[in-house]
């Protein structure tokens, strides 16, 4: 039973355009959602997070939106750059615990 789902395995976007990566979850006990970026042969690196009490968080070119009623979050990258090409993981943190649930990742390719 996947509690955090990234239904798009891959996404291609033209340089300069917006990239939108999506993540759905099923458990209302998550209190934080995080996005990680992963290059080949490297570990995931933290990108941006959002508390479950917020609906938007912005950091430079990256914005995460949270729709609690739909149990859906999305990561917007504007403008997309070739260096953004990587696998993006969505993760959810269980309130009051030390545990996280990760999605399966979306491979983003930004075309120059």
């Amino acid at each position, binding site marked *: 039973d996947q509690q*955090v789902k990234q239904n798009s395995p891959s996404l291609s976007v033209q340089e300069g355009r917006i990239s939108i990566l999506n993540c759905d979850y099923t458990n209302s006990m998550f*209190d*934080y959602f*995080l996005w*990680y970026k992963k290059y080949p*042969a*490297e*570990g*995931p*690196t*933290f990108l941006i*997070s959002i508390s479950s009490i917020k609906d938007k968080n912005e950091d430079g070119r990256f914005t995460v939106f949270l729709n609690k009623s739909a149990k859906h979050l999305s990561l917007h990258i504007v403008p997309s750059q070739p260096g953004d090409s990587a696998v993006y*993981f969505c*993760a959810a*943190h269980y309130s009051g615990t*030390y*545990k*996280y*649930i*990760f*999605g*399966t*990742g979306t491979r983003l390719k930004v075309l120059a």
Partner: protein
Amino acid sequence: NAGVTQTPKFRVLKTGQSMTLLCAQDMNHEYMYWYRQDPGMGLRLIHYSVGEGTTAKGEVPDGYNVSRLKKQNFLLGLESAAPSQTSVYFCASRPGPAGPTQYFGPGTRLLVL
């Protein structure tokens, strides 16, 4: 400040052999984690530790043991490796209760023949 480091980067084992993966962090973080990543799956938690001398089971702990004798180190042991343990292993650390961000190491690629 090296962050989170993992040793070794790559290893090949034969079925039944044992090995220890080492994770070290120099950020004075309280919490440490071991994950495995398999194709088409998200990172799955093997074991974690919330402080020196403490460990707990995660989602997929069978076949693995861990120890956290020093705050900065978290060891993952495979007593008798199986082909199903072929995977990429990531260690992560987190400062503590305040803030959910985890910091990951570069990974160890393990192949069990």
